[in-house]
């Protein structure tokens, strides 16, 4: 008994000390971040779909890359500080951004397999800067691509200048037209005046694509495996802090089908339904817009570290990464084994409700109703009415040229019965009912 009391006492003291220490640590006054000059690697890496940029601080020893794709690295001296809100190191590139020159050596099992010098490279966005696709160009092709963009921009600026001149001319003609109308009406002329109405000039369209300015970086394209990199300065020495491990990985599964779902009542807060095991639960009336994507499955830890080396993740977990939108398909809505709807993709325009009230309407887009506007998004509209009789439904994709559903595109949709949740407490009584039956049986046995 004494031992027990002693142990309990010790445990209480331990808890007290730990709680006090944590309290003490939390009471430290706030502080301005301490800036430290560091050698970091700036990167622009292929993330499975497009390119993502970031930096690798000194605290991270490993850089993660996707196999057989071009990625860029550049060694820089910058000021690094710890940002407690995100618990991550940040770089002050605006204060200090000094390129460290040299040759990047790539080693495998201790042997140098590549010596890289900096090369020109650009990123091209064929669907515009906010488009979903980005392409990487290097060396001569990079300069050619940038030149193409520059020419397109110059042409646009020329057309824009012409447009502004034409608009000035148009305003003049319009003024003249109104004056003429006024004059003739005041002179007592009635009926049609037969004066030509000046035509408003149309603004030119800018280039639909965007290309970044060329810059010089080390371009890394490695097959699957583990490597080391280091920077050798011009004097032949290894630059301190430049040695890093490189893990080059690839996707585990390819060609999956995932969905981005835009709920009609909160179109900016999109949902993902990537795993085939996922079920879409819907309560009440819902209008959903489905956007199907091809997807590849990557290791969560590796992929998180690829996008930001300071990210966390689990090596045992796998995540789906959307690679490209799936085109030329229909969305099929099935219920009780029957095809209920065959839905085609349409463009939609989100129109804010004018006035002080918040809200918007999602309208089917067409150029006539929305001149000079672009559709907000494209998708497959599915109306889940609460009047649907059964509770279990499925969706599939079907290629327009074929009649069979696409493999891995099936997802279940279940309509929730929220009202019934009040009966859940009654279900909990089940063990008590069984207990009561056992108790009564036992009493009967004792009496008889």
């Amino acid at each position: 008994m004494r031992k027990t009391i002693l142990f309990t006492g010790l445990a209480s003291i331990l808890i007290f000390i730990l709680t006090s220490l944590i309290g003490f640590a939390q009471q430290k006054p706030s502080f301005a971040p301490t800036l430290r000059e560091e050698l970091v690697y700036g990167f622009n890496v292929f993330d499975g779909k497009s390119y993502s940029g970031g930096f690798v601080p000194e605290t991270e020893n490993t850089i993660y890359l996707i196999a057989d794709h071009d990625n860029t690295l550049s060694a820089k001296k910058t000021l690094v500080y710890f940002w407690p809100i995100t618990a991550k190191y940040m770089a002050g590139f605006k204060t200090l951004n000094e390129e460290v020159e040299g040759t990047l050596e790539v080693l495998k099992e201790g042997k140098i397999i590549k010596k890289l010098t900096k090369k020109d490279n650009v990123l091209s966005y064929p669907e515009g800067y906010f488009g979903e696709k980005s392409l990487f160009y290097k060396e001569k092709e990079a300069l050619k691509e940038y030149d193409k963009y520059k020419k397109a921009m110059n042409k646009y600026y020329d057309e824009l200048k012409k447009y502004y001149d034409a608009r000035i001319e148009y305003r003049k003609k319009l003024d003249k037209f109104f004056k003429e109308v006024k004059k003739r009406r005041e002179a007592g002329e009635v009926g049609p005046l037969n004066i030509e109405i000046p035509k408003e000039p149309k603004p030119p369209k800018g280039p639909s694509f965007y290309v970044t300015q060329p810059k010089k970086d080390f371009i890394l394209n490695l097959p699957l495996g583990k490597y080391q990199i280091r920077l050798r300065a011009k004097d032949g020495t290894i630059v301190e802090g430049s040695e890093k491990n490189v893990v080059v990985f690839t996707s585990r599964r390819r060609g999956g089908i995932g969905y981005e779902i835009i709920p009609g009542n909160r179109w900016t807060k999109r949902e993902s339904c990537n795993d085939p095991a996922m079920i879409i639960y819907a309560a009440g009336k819902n209008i959903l817009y489905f956007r199907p994507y091809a997807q590849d499955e990557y290791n969560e830890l590796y992929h998180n570290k690829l996008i930001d080396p300071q990210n966390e993740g689990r090596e045992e977990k796998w995540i789906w990464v959307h690679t490209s939108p799936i085109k030329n398909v229909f969305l099929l809505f099935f219920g009780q084994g029957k095809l209920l709807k065959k839905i085609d993709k349409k463009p939609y325009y989100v129109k804010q409700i004018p006035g002080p009230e918040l809200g918007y309407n999602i309208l089917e887009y067409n150029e006539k109703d929305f001149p000079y506007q672009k559709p907000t998004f494209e998708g497959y509209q599915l109306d889940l009415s609460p009047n649907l009789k059964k509770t279990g439904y499925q969706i599939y994709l079907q290629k327009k040229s074929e009649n069979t559903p696409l493999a891995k595109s099936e997802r279940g949709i279940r309509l929730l019965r929220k009202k019934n949740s009040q009966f859940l407490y009654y279900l909990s009584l089940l063990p008590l009912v069984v207990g009561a039956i056992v108790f009564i049986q036992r009493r009967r046995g004792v009496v008889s």
Partner: protein
Amino acid sequence: MAKGSFSLTVHSIKVLIKRELVSSLQGWGFYGAIFVSLIVCSFLLKNFMGGIREENILISSYPLNFPLFVSVIIISFYLVVISAISISREREQGTLEILFYGPVSSFSFTIGKYFKDIFLYLITLIFFAAYFFGVSALTNLGFTYSLVKSLGLSIFWVSCVISFGLFISSLTGRVRSSIIWLVAILLAFLAIQFAHSAFLSFPKEALSTPLLYLRRTLYYLSKGISWVSPFSYISRGMESIQIESMKLYLLNIGYCIVYSVIFLTLSVYILKLKGVRG
């Protein structure tokens, strides 16, 4: 002769299981514990359903897994307490001495107690399955394959909990001591893990050298606890289901079996060492 001794051991285990199981099933405690776990589950599910606003969607593979996890934790507390007091109560009441005059050995006694609790949990599992099936039918939340996997894995989690409880019980001579030991150990586990996670939220720069050493020590301690505490096997198992890794799922079953064997062996050994009077 050896064969005869083996069959006698098996027979005494069977008799012990039957005696204890019938006694537990005829009491209100068992049904009460399941009721509490299910009522908590209903509360969680009702709030969850209420959280999905009208005209909204929720995308999930396993909406029923978290309530099941909570139910298993609650029922595990009940099982760890009854297994923690099971040996010490028999010792305190003197029945252990009487049993050991007969063909009952420390091995058959411990194994009998262990399997009684396992059977109790298997019966609980029937209640859980019926309850979640009912929930699915009422609300249309999916009774999915992953829920079946969780139900299967929970048998192994509970095995860890029971063997840990028996180990505590074998160490103590009185019911009161067993409960105090159990609560103290679980609180110490909780405090260390809480302190470690609290320390993790501070950057290295914000901590003085002694606190950095303390953080390191806590890291090793919580690593150790994650293998000693039976409850960490539950969270580890849930994670393997959540990330849908069959390898991890089977590995967790393996860990639970090894854990149970180690703690049961220790219980038998300590019971033998301490004797029937403690």
